[in-house]
């Protein structure tokens, strides 16, 4: 009896201690913002010829710098939303869970940035080589989400897996096509980025919008 009671108490303590480290900010607005930004950027990317001519960049270089820019805007937007939520709830912005999530995503994000910069540096880069970037970025992003998922609701880890698996499918596709029929024009890579980063985030954001709302009402 005493053992059961004490064990139960210890279990409650353990559960509460774990719960305190979980990131609790509403994710739907972040997903919706990232998704919308990704989709708009993907659609706008179809006019890459115009953009590249205006910016006097080659198409491959434009692709890399364009999506690095979109990524930076998305990250900045996400942190601004987190800060706004923290201020609204009278909570510290740079809380322990926020720091943990940031630490978890940071390595993959840094690698993604470096891979992008390395791809953008040479002026002679072939469009074919650039086609490797979207799946590599997706895979890194999936790994980042999965790592962050240990401090977030479980769905984030599954979302990370989804990105990683989609990335694997496209890695196989790019590999096959690069030896055979050749890759489609680079504006389709913009479409892929928009579809993956925009479409998936938007779909998950809509799902979270309704489920988080329901949870808050309960």
């Amino acid at each position, binding site marked *: 009896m*005493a*053992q059961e009671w*004490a064990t139960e*108490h210890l279990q409650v*303590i353990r559960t509460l*201690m*774990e719960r*305190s480290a979980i990131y609790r900010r509403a994710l739907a607005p972040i997903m919706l913002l990232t998704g919308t930004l990704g989709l708009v950027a993907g659609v706008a990317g179809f006019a890459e010829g115009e953009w590249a001519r205006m910016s006097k960049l080659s198409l491959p270089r434009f692709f890399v710098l364009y999506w690095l820019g979109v990524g930076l805007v998305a990250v900045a937007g996400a942190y601004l939303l987190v800060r706004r939520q923290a201020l609204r709830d009278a909570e*510290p912005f740079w809380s*322990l869970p926020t720091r943990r999530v940031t630490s978890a995503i940071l390595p993959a994000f840094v690698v993604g940035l470096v891979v992008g910069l390395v791809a953008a540096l040479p002026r002679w880069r072939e469009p074919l080589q650039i086609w490797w970037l979207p799946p590599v970025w997706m895979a890194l992003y999936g790994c980042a989400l999965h790592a962050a998922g240990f401090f977030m609701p479980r769905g984030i880890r599954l979302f990370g897996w989804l990105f990683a698996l989609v990335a694997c499918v496209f890695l196989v596709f790019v590999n096959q096509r690069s030896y055979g029929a050749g890759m489609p024009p680079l504006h389709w890579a913009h479409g892929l980025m928009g579809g993956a980063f925009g479409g998936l985030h938007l779909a998950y954001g809509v799902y979270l919008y309704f489920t988080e709302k329901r949870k808050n009402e309960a």
Partner: protein
Amino acid sequence: MNPEPFLQLDRVIHEKGRLAIMSLLATVPQLSFTELRDTLNMTDGNITAHIRTLQETGYVSVTKEFQGGRPLTTFALTPRGRKSFTQYINLLEQIVQQTKSGK
């Protein structure tokens, strides 16, 4: 069974609500009022009452500041609170071990 550990349990921490607050504060440097309230699904009044008791015992420190023009109240375990919490857990483990070994 030796009733000694059971009798030594800290009555301030032993209360369910205060134990929950202490457990949360034990893992983080500090928590805000709303974080605490939302994680534990407690009412404002409940949190305030428990925090007052814990503060009076010297287990929790309360900091009031302004962030973005809004008042922000945060709570943290004091060294004394951390020590008492650790002792409380050790005693619980002792009770479990004692019962297991049939003392």
